[in-house]
């Protein structure tokens, strides 16, 4: 079968997703097109070199609406003959773009793709695209809908993680991200965001809080306690689905949950012929992809069954994986992953994650695949697995292997 290789991966630094964030002045189209141009320029591609651009994005309204992928292609240096496909699988959209592209290549539908995504969370508010699962009583009541923060706290309660467990993981994420930046570990993939005159706007991840310690995190109030226990009382819904629990332990807060940021990332994927044509050396092959659905109430446990499935589908075991990227949507998601597979935390999110650097929803899946590849190369390891939990109860995973 045709192999799908990763030839390049780039990402923008992540800006704070607020009015005073560095990327707040940049449109989602411009940020996306800078990523597309970077991939074209770094690899000396023709304007028509790829079959399609598959672009993950969650909140597809306003400037992110109207098939952003197509708009970004037209705003970039790629030819108008490249169409553009906007996709949404919530937090795994960027990963799903990569997986779709890889499987298209494997299936022979074109030689190469650019896959990635963008989310300008400070410009287009999360949730502003509506969501029937939260609002439509026929669905919300029958699926026992609760917001993600409550789900993360259900995981903590069900699997026995304490506030200290979560805070310690958050501190570690900050320390690792700071160390990675100090050691220039992101240099292969980071591109500087520039204005229309070439002036730099942002060169580093902006959200990080190096030096965060347990004491600082200890002072933060649990973010989902009120909506759980008081108004509108989501804990009752959680207990309807998990009746063996007596109460929900609310451990998550802004410091041990992923950050709201702006950012974009892209991955260049192609077959062997594509590499030869452009004189590019494949960095890794995309060995296996998978996606699954899980209980929508606890919602964020997807990485566990997704990993079980992808390992089974690829005939591998957990011991065959050298490094892991498990998106730090909430601390309990990663804690649960480590618990379920009994993996060494030193191999998971080696250079920090979304708690420290932020989680631009539609881009993160592509970001962590790039981060995983960079680290496999740096530490000279072979096989890596990236996985994310997904809203409404889904999970996705990708296994890459250096070649």
């Amino acid at each position: 079968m045709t192999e799908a290789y990763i030839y390049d991966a780039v990402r923008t630094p992540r800006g704070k997703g607020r009015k005073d964030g560095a990327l707040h002045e940049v449109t989602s189209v411009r940020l996306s097109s800078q990523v597309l141009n970077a991939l074209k320029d770094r690899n000396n591609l023709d304007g028509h070199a790829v079959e399609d651009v598959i672009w993950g994005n969650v909140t597809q309204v306003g400037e992110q609406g109207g098939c952003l992928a197509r708009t970004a292609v037209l705003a970039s240096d790629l030819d108008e003959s490249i169409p553009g496909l906007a996709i949404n699988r919530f937090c795994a959209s960027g990963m799903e773009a990569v997986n779709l592209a890889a499987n298209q290549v494997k299936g022979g539908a074109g030689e190469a793709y650019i896959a990635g995504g963008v989310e300008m969370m400070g410009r287009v508010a999360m949730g502003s695209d509506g969501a029937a699962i939260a609002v439509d009583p026929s669905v919300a009541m029958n699926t026992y809908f609760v917001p993600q923060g409550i789900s993360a706290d259900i995981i903590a309660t069900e699997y026995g993680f304490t506030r200290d467990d979560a805070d310690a993981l958050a501190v570690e994420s900050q320390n690792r991200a700071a160390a990675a930046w100090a050691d220039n570990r992101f240099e292969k993939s980071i591109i500087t965001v520039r204005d229309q005159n070439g002036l730099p706007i942002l060169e580093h991840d902006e959200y990080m809080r190096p030096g965060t310690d347990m004491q600082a995190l200890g002072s933060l109030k649990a973010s989902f306690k009120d909506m759980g226990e008081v108004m509108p009382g989501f804990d009752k819904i959680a207990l309807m689905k998990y009746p063996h629990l007596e109460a929900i332990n609310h451990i998550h807060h802004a410091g041990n949950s992923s950050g709201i940021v702006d950012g974009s990332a892209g991955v260049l994927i192609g077959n062997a012929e594509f590499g030869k044509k452009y004189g590019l050396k494949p960095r890794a092959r995309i060995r296996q992809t998978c996606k699954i659905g899980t209980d929508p109430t606890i919602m964020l446990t997807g990485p566990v069954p997704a990993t079980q499935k992808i390992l089974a589908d690829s005939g591998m075991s957990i011991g065959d994986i050298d490094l892991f990227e498990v998106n730090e949507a909430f601390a309990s998601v990663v804690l649960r992953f480590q618990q379920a597979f009994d993996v060494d935390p030193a191999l998971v999110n080696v250079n920090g994650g979304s708690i420290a650097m932020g989680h631009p929803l539609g881009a993160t899946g592509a970001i962590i695949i790039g981060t995983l590849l960079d680290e496999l190369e740096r530490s000279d390891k072979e096989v890596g697995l990236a996985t994310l939990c997904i809203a409404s109860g889904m999970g996705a995973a990708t296994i890459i292997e250096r070649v």
Partner: protein
Amino acid sequence: MTDFTMKTDADGVAIITWDTVGKSMNVMTMDGWPLLESLVDQALADGAVKGIIITSGKEGSFAGGMDLNVIAKMKESAGDNPAKGLMDGLMNAHGILRKIERAGMDPKTNKGGKPIAAALPGTALGIGLEIPLACHRIFAADNPRAKIGLPEIMVGIFPGMGGTTRLVRKMGAMAAAPLLLEGKLNTPAKAKAAGVVDEVVPADELIAKAKEWVLSEPKIVKPWDEKGYKMPGGAPYHPAGFMTFVGASAMVNGKTQGVYPAAKALLSAVYEGALVPFDTALKIEARWFTNVLMNPSSSAMIRSLFINKEALEKGANRPAVDDQTVKKVGVLGAGMMGAGIALVSALAGIEVVLIDRDQEAADKGKAYTTAYMDKGISRKKATPEKKEQVLAQITATTDLNALAGCDLIVEAVFEDVGVKAEMTKAVEAIVGEDCIFATNTSTLPITELAKASVRPEQFIGIHFFSPVDKMMLVEIIKGQQTGDPAVAKALDFVRQIRKTPIVVNDARFFYANRCIIPYINEGIRMVAEGVAPALIENAAKLVGMPLGPLQLVDETSIDLGVKIAKATKAAMGDAYPDGAVDDVLFWMFDQGRLGRKSAAGFYAYDDKGKRAGLWDGLAAQYRQADDQPDVTTVQHRLLFAQVLEAVRALEEGVLEDIREGDVGAILGWGFAPWSGGPFSWLDMIGAGKAVELCDALTATYGERFATPALLREMAEKGQTFYGRFGTQAKAA
């Protein structure tokens, strides 16, 4: 015989008067709709008519709502395809109300049309408010006793004649929520403040004011029929509306634990309706209302909570004996029960003699009424005058001679055969020969207690539930020799104090406690087995029980449980089946954990006595199993523990009427109201399925789940309880 009549005054205002024949309050019937429509058609077509007023011929009320007897039978009478029959019928009624609302206006320009006012002399409930909501302006008489609202949700349905769609569009989802979801009723003044009615006017000017408005050439087009209409508070995908709707689903789901289909359907009608134009929204409302009517829960709830409850209150099982209205009641024992019985009797205007051994105790019993009335005054539900009036009814004394002239005695002294016998003899010596003697025992056999009486045919059990002023059920127990006059006396007394009676025969624990005790025991038994206590409690709530079994035993007290267990064991000997339960119960008792009253039970309690979660010491003694049962298994055990006792009570003739079994279960111990009661629930799942579940439970958990012969026979014959035992015929 016609419910609606019309006359047109010289000023050109047509007045349509609703006056249901033979009823004190108007109710809508199937025949009423075409009559109303033809009069509206006539008035709209008549060039001499300038406008219309719809009012009531009943003093102090507009209408009580739809005839629930009709609603209960709507599904059966809807033809071979009931969903279609219901939908067609609803859309037809919507058409009539829409005709009123549009009143002949041009569909495009909204020009023309005749103003239609609703003039409400008083109470307007259900359809009695939905018709006014379709009119252009609602005038309500300033009648403080009038109740205005949409209480449909209380009987398992929702406002399905446009009330849901119109109220939400008029007020916004947030403001309409308490009226629709809780069935909150308002006085006219409050209804105006809430925006439900438009004008509150003096009662004697009601028609004049409405007329004045009709003749003022008012603007009549509804906001939702105009271009650019926006829902107050925001539609579901408006940022503000989004939060309202997300919260509404969670709150309703959490509060109802997902077992009330009407609440879900109502919310869906509101949400889906909010996204489309008005006429489409009405169609959506009709589809969801049909969905609720098709759900067996709605007809079961209407049957038990309204029709049969009312029938029992009106004396469905009262022997044909002359009026036995109580004039003077003697209450023996001024403890918690006696004090409560004195209170409800005094509130009903009955003279009360409250007796206890010492004056201090008697006074303390009377003080309960004082405290109750003070609370009422602070909440503006009573006045100081009313308080004095009620207190004046109660004489608290130690003097048994004060009981002379009582026509009813209710004994509520210590639960001891000897003590009760002594009181019976002493009191019978003082009261007149016609006086009925009732005991409020909850555990002792009536026939046994009646042995102390010189007039056992006048001796009866009247079993109140605690707290007396809140609990609506009263269980009347006939001893072997109890005669009809005593039963009639007890029933008339219950009617006077506005509670709901059931009449049962004498047997251990009568009816209610007989069913509650196995429920509690099954919960405790599961603790011993290692089932997570939270799962036991949550499973109970998820099937509609108001309290989990462990919380319930904390409330009723663990020492009472121990006492009952010891007495039952003594009575049953080797056949006693609850040893596993007693291990836990007696251990709790030995730890001094007696429940709420000792601020320590299956739950822990904080310094203020507030429940603070399940007691963690329980897990140390009874280790939770690694494999927990699924929630359905726990629910089946908890439900069948109760339901099988109800069936056995019927089999043994303790219960003579399944209506009493169902109504008593819901009012007495809160048995899953959505089901309509134990017998309604069995009918809902079917006897065949029930037998299958019982057999499986028996095989796994033991003989206490053994299928009663009656149930097995009904399964074989394909019968239902309501089919076999009917609504009128007694079981025995």
